[in-house]
């Protein structure tokens, strides 16, 4: 193709890219009569939607393949050794089997060639470390013989070749008893103890680093190698968390995954993990994620499952004598392991020797020094974790029956009517019976001592419960409702929804028009579940039904429930832009609720937010303050709920133009939320997104830009395909502050497309994205006439919101701009139409980019 033709095609292509498909042909015909050119453009357009990642995958594949190729180039000789074969490629380098040429001794050796070229400084360190390691001479440590560098500059180590099999496989293959396993492990511990006396830390003790030969002698490989082969740890090549990738997280201590100082006590932890694995057949902490943050959290927060529990769960092909499970041997060993595996280094055995001594005590039937960990300690660990995760981890399935009964019993206490109480007792009894029967019949393994998880129990019970004829409608409805609630609490609203719907159906048939607290509550929870699922179109109806039922009841419980439903519906009404109904129901909620209660502080919070959405900032300020004062009293500062209000206050200050104050509040919120939820969390990211805007307004570009890049990396994959939309509005606003309106327009368009396709009922968010898109199109003077759709959008907004709303004012103004009919009179009349509560300063910025507030 020649250059001039492409020059003609390109601008047309760019324009067509942004047009809806059906408008393309008309547009092209309006631009040119050259049919051949039009054909060409259309041909190119075919390629615009093809897979975006094709180039990355072509190149990625070539990179991968070239790595394999570079490995084919096995060196023939290293120093005086001839390579026999490649044994393995590990995380640190490539491993070869080799033999000395000159018959000085005919022992085979292992050569490890480090992947990477070291700087002068690191070469020196490498040599020093190698010399130290060469001094380690112990029957249970694979000897380092020599080292140096090959022609291409890579370094190598020559080590004793150990013929043997991995320690864990050795144990299983030879059916070793618990005592034999402990004795074998002691050899490894002795090796570590010897090295520790020379102040050398292994750093990577794990089953694959320990080989046992035919005579039962264990050898620990790669002593200290992790350190000398990993110069990057201190070099910082701009690759964060290198240390994570160079160790095996299952056996790594908390301080190691956190990148803190590694000490002799880190080896104590890894030894504990090794022994645990040899006894149980699985690592004490199972890692299922590959995200560094997640791994770190798992290692630092999960308590290993008690030995007894693990042994019970074991596969039948493992040979630990079941009779031993309740023995004192297992109990003491459990205490020993938990001591070695303590998260805090200072609580572990102070030395490997003490660890070994305690194992000797155990083997000699003497009392061990490791005492059971106090209940208080365990409780504090337990509370730190999510309750449901703990349940999942191993609470027996019968617990679910118990759990549901407990909810009935507590409801029973609140129920005043005698008849109802009797029914409740009957429900409790039937529930327990029903679930135990269900569980026993559902899983034959139950009888073999394996405890099934809550998840399994739940999933199995749902279908059967739906199908059963054994229970009457009222009880069945109740059980379904409870199961639905359990799924909701476990963050699975999709699964909960049909159960709730069925529960309502059964209960409605039973009630036959008579108002009941239960039905009101079911509708309320159903509505709230719809809210969680973004079904803002259906939720209001459910809420209104709940309200209509509960209004007929005057007992305390029903009133409280009604206030709760008012509140939840208020949240939905705010989000769909029905601020008037939101205000009304939230006022009812506040009215019905006594002070000081946590509920009331939340209702104030939602009430204030409803004002914030309408930019009635003075009112938002007033009620956020009320919520905040209450929360300070009830929960204290820096608590989760208190921070929610602080966040709202920061947003209000931002809108008021008090950027400094806003930033301080938002920074505090962010810091505390990171502590609470971890760094990699959607709430944390959206907090960050607002902080970015505040930084930008304060001209703190460096901080703002750092956040922006972070958010952008989360939002898009490497081919800028959208993967996460939630912070797009703030990113768009930020880009506009930076004055790149064109890119801002892209972001708003993406957001609009995403919402329309995936969350079509987030009405308010859609209106905001659409408004900003049209506004920017106009400001950029895109040769873009209003389409029929755009005109319809103007009308939609005018019909949807009250006449004196911000939304209508903005849309009128924009429409006037499009039609070239803006004059000062119009502007003034629009401003006048707006509620006087909108403060003057704000009016100025009224028509500029508006980040969507959350």
């Amino acid at each position: 193709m020649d250059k001039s033709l492409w020059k003609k095609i390109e601008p047309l292509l760019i324009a067509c890219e942004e047009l809806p498909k059906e408008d393309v042909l008309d547009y092209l015909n309006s631009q040119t009569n050259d049919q051949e050119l039009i054909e060409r453009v259309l041909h190119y357009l075919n390629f615009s939607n093809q897979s975006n990642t094709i180039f990355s995958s072509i190149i990625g594949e070539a990179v991968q393949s070239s790595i394999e190729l570079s490995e084919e180039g096995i060196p023939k000789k290293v120093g005086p050794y001839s390579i026999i074969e490649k044994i393995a490629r590990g995380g640190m380098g490539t491993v070869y089997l080799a033999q000395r040429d000159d018959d000085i001794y005919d022992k085979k050796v292992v050569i490890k060639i480090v992947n990477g070229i070291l700087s002068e400084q690191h070469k020196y360190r490498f040599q020093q470390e190698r010399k130290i390691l060469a001094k380690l001479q112990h029957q249970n440590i694979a000897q380092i013989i020599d080292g140096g560098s090959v022609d291409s500059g890579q370094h190598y180590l020559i080590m004793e070749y150990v013929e043997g099999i991995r320690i864990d496989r050795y144990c299983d293959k030879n059916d070793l008893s618990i005592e034999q396993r402990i004795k074998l492990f002691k050899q490894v511990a002795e090796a570590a103890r010897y090295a520790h006396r020379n102040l050398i830390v292994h750093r990577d003790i794990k089953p694959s680093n320990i080989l046992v030969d035919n005579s039962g002698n264990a050898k620990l490989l790669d002593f200290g190698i992790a350190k000398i082969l990993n110069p990057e740890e201190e070099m910082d090549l701009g690759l964060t968390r290198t240390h994570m990738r160079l160790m095996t997280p299952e056996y790594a201590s908390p301080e190691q995954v956190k990148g803190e100082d590694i000490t002799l006590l880190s080896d104590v932890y890894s030894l504990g993990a090794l022994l645990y694995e040899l006894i149980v057949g699985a690592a004490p902490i199972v890692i299922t994620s590959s995200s560094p943050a997640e791994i770190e959290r798992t290692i630092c927060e999960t308590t290993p499952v008690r030995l007894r529990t693990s042994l019970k769960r074991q596969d039948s092909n493992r040979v630990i004598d079941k009779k031993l499970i309740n023995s004192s041997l297992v109990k003491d060993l459990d205490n020993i392991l938990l001591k070695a595996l303590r998260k805090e280094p200072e609580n572990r055995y102070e030395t490997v020797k003490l660890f070994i001594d305690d194992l000797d005590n155990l083997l000699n039937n003497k009392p061990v020094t490791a005492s059971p960990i106090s209940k208080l300690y365990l409780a504090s660990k337990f509370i730190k974790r999510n309750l449901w995760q703990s349940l999942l981890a191993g609470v027996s399935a019968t617990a679910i029956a118990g759990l549901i009964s407990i909810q009935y019993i507590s409801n029973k206490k609140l129920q005043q009517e005698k008849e109802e109480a009797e029914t409740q007792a009957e429900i409790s009894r039937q529930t327990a019976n029903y679930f135990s029967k269900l569980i026993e019949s559902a899983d034959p393994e139950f009888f073999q001592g394996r405890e099934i998880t809550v998840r399994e129990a739940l999933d199995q019970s749902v279908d059967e419960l739906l199908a059963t004829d054994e229970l009457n409608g009222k009880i069945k409805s109740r059980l379904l409702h409870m199961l639905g609630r359990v799924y909701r609490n476990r963050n699975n609203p999709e699964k909960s929804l049909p159960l709730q719907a069925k529960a309502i159906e059964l209960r409605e048939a039973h009630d036959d028009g008579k108002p009941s607290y239960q039905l009101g509550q079911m509708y309320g929870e159903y509505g709230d579940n719809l809210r969680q699922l973004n079904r803002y179109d259906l939720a209001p109806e459910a809420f209104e039904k709940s309200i209509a039922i509960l209004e007929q009841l005057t007992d305390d419980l029903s009133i409280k429930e009604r206030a709760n439903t008012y509140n939840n519906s208020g949240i939905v009404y705010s989000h769909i832009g029905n601020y008037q109904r939101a205000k009304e129901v939230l006022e009812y909620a506040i009215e019905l609720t006594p002070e000081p209660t946590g509920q009331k502080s939340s209702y104030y919070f939602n009430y204030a937010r409803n004002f914030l959405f309408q930019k009635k900032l003075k009112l938002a300020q007033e009620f956020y303050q009320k919520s905040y004062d209450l929360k300070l009293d009830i929960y204290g500062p820096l608590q989760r709920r208190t921070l929610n209000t602080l966040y709202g206050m920061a947003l209000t200050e931002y809108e008021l133009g008090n950027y400094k104050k806003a930033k301080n509040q938002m920074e505090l919120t962010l810091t505390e939320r990171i502590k609470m939820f971890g760094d990699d969390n959607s709430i944390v990211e959206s907090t960050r997104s607002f902080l970015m805007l505040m930084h930008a307004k304060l001209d703190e570009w460096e901080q703002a830009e750092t956040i922006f890049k972070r958010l952008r990396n989360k939002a898009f994959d490497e081919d800028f395909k959208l993967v996460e939309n939630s912070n797009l509005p703030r990113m768009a606003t930020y880009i506009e502050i930076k004055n790149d309106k064109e890119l801002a327009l892209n972001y708003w368009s993406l957001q609009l497309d995403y919402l329309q396709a995936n969350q079509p009922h987030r009405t308010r968010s859609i209106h905001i994205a659409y408004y900003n898109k049209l506004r920017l199109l106009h400001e950029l003077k895109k040769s873009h006439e209003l389409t029929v759709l755009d005109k319809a959008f103007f009308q939609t907004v005018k019909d949807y919101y009250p006449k004196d709303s911000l939304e209508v004012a903005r849309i009128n103004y924009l429409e006037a701009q499009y039609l070239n009919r803006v004059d000062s009179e119009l502007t003034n009349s629009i401003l006048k139409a707006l509620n006087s509560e909108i403060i003057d300063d704000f009016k100025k910025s009224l028509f500029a980019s508006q980040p969507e507030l959350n």
Partner: protein
Amino acid sequence: MNKEVTQLFNQWQSGDQAVQEQLSQLIYQELHRLASFYMQKENQGHTLQATAIVNEVYIQLNNQNLNVNNRQHLFALVSNMMRRYLVNHAKTKLTQKRGGDWSKVEINSEVDGQQLNLEQLLDFDEALDELAKIDERKAQIIEQRYFGGRELEEIAIAFDISESTLHRDIKMAKIWLMEKMS
């Protein structure tokens, strides 16, 4: 960073061999970052595999008589080296597979899939050359983005264009290239 690099180059060009070590380190880091760019989405343990490829490019680069004016130039050079390295690799590998070196012929379906992609790389390379003839800037942008793994901001700054122009350039270049390769 930019200033620092320019200074290093100036010193080097004025005959100060002592800075070579420092500069090499820098180039090495660049290459390392780039290789991990294509590895990052994969499993752990890839860091050092990435290092293997970097070593080879680095050795090539080191043997060249470097004449680099600034950091932007360095980026461009590294991207181009990477491209040439991968293209050479693909050619070698394909020759072997086609029987150029009989001892290494392997037959299994996995290799066939890989071969297809290596051929695509050669097509990509050719198409990119063609693109350079009609729109050099776009070709360079694609080279730096895909072979150099450069951040978008950096590319925008290097070419002194806005990010939205950059997005558009990439989009147009992709369409053009895909059409060419189809």
